[in-house]
C-alpha cells in the first residue's frame, strides 16, 4: 500500500496545482474560495446598485471555469465562447435571484450548463448542425513549457481523442465527468450544482468515466492507459 499512499499524496498535490492552473491563478484553493465568497457578496451588491465595472472581477475570476465547462460540453470553440459570454450576461441580469445559498461559481455553472443543454437540444432538432472536432493541429515548433515538439504533438493528439470521446458521452455523464475531472469540482459542490444527491453524482461520474474508458479503448488509444 506504500504505492497507494504515494499516489494519494501525489494526486492531492496534483489536484491542488491543477486547480490553481486551471483557474489561471484566480482560485488557489478552498480557503481562497471561502474568502471569495465573502467579497463576492459586496461585489454583487455593487453590481445590483448599477456598477457594471464591478462585474469585471467576477468575469475575470470565473471566465476560465465557465469557458472550459461550456467548451467541453459543446465541443465547439466558437460556440463555447458565445455561450460562455451569454452565461455571464444572464447571470448579471439575474443577480437579484442569487440568494447566496450556494457559491456564486456554482450558481454561474448552473446557468452555463442550462445554456449548454439548450444548445444541445437545438442540435438534436437540427441534426445538420456540425459538431466540430478538434484535430491535433500542426506540429508545433516549440511548446511553451519547454516540452519537445513530438511530446507536444502527442499531448495534442491525446487531447483531441479525449475531446472526441467526451463529445460522444450522454449529456448527464459528460457534465459529471467534466465537472469532476476537468474542473476539479468536489462531489458536494457537484451535488449542489446538479441538484442530485452525492450518491447519484458518484454513479454518474463513475459510469461516465467507464464509458469514456471504453470509447478510448475502441479508438485504440494509449493501450497502457486503458
Amino acid at each position, binding site marked *: 500500500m506504500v504505492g497507494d499512499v504515494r499516489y494519494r499524496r501525489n494526486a492531492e498535490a496534483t489536484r491542488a496545482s491543477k486547480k490553481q492552473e486551471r483557474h489561471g491563478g484566480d482560485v488557489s484553493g478552498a480557503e481562497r474560495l471561502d474568502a471569495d465568497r465573502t467579497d463576492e457578496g459586496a461585489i454583487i451588491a455593487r453590481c445590483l446598485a448599477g456598477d457594471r465595472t464591478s462585474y469585471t472581477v467576477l468575469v475575470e475570476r470565473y471566465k476560465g471555469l465557465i469557458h472550459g465547462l461550456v467548451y467541453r460540453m459543446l465541443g465547439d470553440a466558437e460556440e463555447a465562447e458565445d455561450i460562455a459570454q451569454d452565461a455571464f450576461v444572464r447571470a448579471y441580469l439575474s443577480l437579484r435571484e442569487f440568494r447566496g445559498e450556494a457559491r456564486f461559481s456554482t450558481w454561474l455553472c448552473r446557468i452555463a450548463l442550462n445554456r449548454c443543454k439548450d444548445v444541445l437540444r437545438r442540435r438534436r432538432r437540427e441534426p445538420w448542425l456540425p459538431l466540430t472536432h478538434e484535430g491535433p493541429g500542426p506540429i508545433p515548433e516549440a511548446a511553451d513549457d519547454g516540452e519537445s515538439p513530438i511530446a507536444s504533438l502527442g499531448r495534442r493528439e491525446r487531447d483531441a481523442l479525449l475531446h472526441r470521446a467526451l463529445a460522444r458521452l450522454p449529456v448527464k455523464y459528460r457534465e459529471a465527468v467534466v465537472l469532476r475531472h476537468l474542473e476539479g469540482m468536489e*462531489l458536494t459542490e457537484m451535488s449542489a450544482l446538479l441538484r442530485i444527491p452525492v450518491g447519484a453524482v458518484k454513479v454518474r461520474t463513475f459510469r461516465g468515466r467507464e464509458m469514456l474508458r471504453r470509447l478510448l479503448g475502441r479508438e485504440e488509444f494509449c493501450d497502457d*492507459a486503458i
Partner: protein
Amino acid sequence: MTRFEALLESHLAGAPDEEREFAGQVAVDENRRVFEAHRRTAGMLAEMSRPPLPPTFTEEVLARLPEHRAPSWEALWDVLWAPRALRWNLGSAVALSLVLAATPLVWKTWPSRPPEVLGRRSVVTNIRFNFDAAGARQVALAGDFNEWQPDGIFLTDTTGRGHFSVSLPLKPGRYAYMFVVDGASWVTDPRAEAYRDDGFGNRNALVTIEDVGRDHGKT
C-alpha cells in the same frame, strides 16, 4: 453501483472516510484492475489542456451588459410597450385571417344562456299590482319607478268586474306608489305591505323587492 465502485469514487475524490474499507477491497485483483484503469483515465482527463480564451472575453461580456439595471416597474413598462419585431410566415398569416373571419360568426351562433341562468343573473323582478275599483273607468299606477307620472302605467280590468291589475318589472329596492283612479283621485293601496307619509298629509304605499326571477303576486 457496487460498493467497491462507490468506494473507488470516494477515493478518487480524495474523501478519507472509507479508506480502510477501500484498501481492503482494492486488494482483490479484479478490483485492482478496475481501480488502475479509472485512475489512469482520471489522470488523462486532469492533464487535458484548457481551451485558449480570447483576450477580449471580459470586454465583450461587459459590452453586452445593459447600461443600467432598470427598476422592476421600468422592466414591466418595457415588457408592455417596448417595440418588438414580429416574425411571420404565410401559414401563420392565413391562420390569423381565418380566426378573424370566423370570430363574428362564432359570436352570432354562440348558444344563448339557459333561461334559468338569465333569471338568476337578472336583478329585475316582476311585481303584480292589484286594485279593486268597481265602477272606475281607468286606474293608473304612479310611483318612484316612473317619476310619479299619473298617465304612464295603466292597470287593466280583465274580468270586467273592477279587478284592475298590472305586472311591472322592478329592480330590487323599496318603492313608494299610489293608484290614480280616473286620472284624478290619488288612492293609497289598502293592501300594501307598508306605508310612509308623503309629506302632504297622505300615505304612500310601499313595496320592497328582495328576491329575483319570480312573478310575485302583489295585493
